[in-house]
């Protein structure tokens, strides 16, 4: 499973990446939406993008709109992970094509429960 963590905060990228790696994801990181589109172009097999809203160059909502406009990435699941917590913002992101929405701050369990909802939590069979 492959994920791209898109956030302009290095600390936040590290936190989310380590949770995803912990359940077996290969993780790539991007500091804004434009950089993420470049990474996604090179990695069309990406399963999941965790997307911050407020970022320089290209924000998270614009990134979601760009990704949904292309058929090539129709199998990529998009999850907003942001401090934006107004109801209207959540509606807007879902309408633009985000599959899920997680509000910061969150616990590691909350992110994994979202993955479970999305059918994107890998189960390790080796025990």
């Amino acid at each position, binding site marked *: 499973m492959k994920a791209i963590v898109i956030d302009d905060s290095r600390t936040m990228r590290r936190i989310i990446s*380590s*949770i995803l790696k*912990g*359940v077996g994801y290969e993780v790539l990181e991007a500091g804004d939406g434009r950089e993420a589109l470049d990474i996604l172009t090179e990695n069309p097999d990406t399963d999941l993008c965790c997307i911050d809203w407020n970022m320089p160059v290209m924000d998270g909502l614009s990134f979601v709109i760009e990704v949904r406009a292309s058929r090539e990435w129709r199998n990529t699941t998009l999850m907003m992970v942001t401090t934006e*917590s*107004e*109801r209207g913002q*959540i*509606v807007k*992101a*879902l309408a633009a094509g*985000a599959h*899920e*929405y*997680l*509000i910061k*701050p*969150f*616990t*590691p*369990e*909350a992110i*994994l*429960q*979202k993955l*479970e*909802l999305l059918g994107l*939590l*890998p*189960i*390790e*069979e*080796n*025990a």
Partner: protein
Amino acid sequence: MSITQENFQFIADLVRARSAIALAPGKEYLVESRLSKFARDEGVTVDQYVTRRRTAMSHSDTELIVEALTTNETSWFRDSQPFTALSGHILPALTQTRGTLGSLRIWSAACSTGQEPYSIAMTLKQYFAQSAYQPQAEILATDLSQQVIDQAMTGRYSQLEVNRGLPAANLVQYFDRRGTEWEISAELRAMVRFRRHNLLDPAPVGGPFDVVFLRNVLIYFDVPTKLKVLRTVHGALRPGGFLVLGAAETTVGLDDSWDRVTVGRSSIYQKAAITA
């Protein structure tokens, strides 16, 4: 940084021996997050913490660890399977045997702070949204603790609570933002009644029920008590009604008055349609 398979297995064996709760592979994250506080107190990683406990474990350590891993963390649509079974099997089966469902009564026993009954309410709303008729649905939610009942009745949840297992689409459909909290909508609140109830007492008024959710409760009881509670629930169900238990629980080998029905990866239990 993450826990080794060996240490995970050690904790899983300990928890299973003490609580009959199975921590399946894939639940490493649960061990990591629940034990992180203890590890932090000692300034070590969770893996190091477990390694230490494997050589020297006091009785209170055992209690702490088992409690941390078995405490009912209430999340929305917890374990997801029971809700899939409700919309995918139980509601169609009840509709088929009863023709149209004029009324539908569901008992959420041990409802804690309300996430389960409200998740049931959301499942019903979505199921009957496609349907030509709307049954009169009543959900009775009970718990032993007045404190959690009081909290559930406020219908308000923190940001952290709505992050846990609740699909974002449901959040915007069924909740309103109130300051830093989210309040469940009036239409869902109208479907649920909360009441304090002890499972060792006779069934609460409000039955007979079509479905009873009794999840992760029986595991805490000894065999005679389990049987007593199962008899109470059996008596409170309509013929053909369904019982939903927790993933680690079963009636099999305890009480043979139920038919086990396998739905996907979970089991539900049905009371015989015609009782002798």
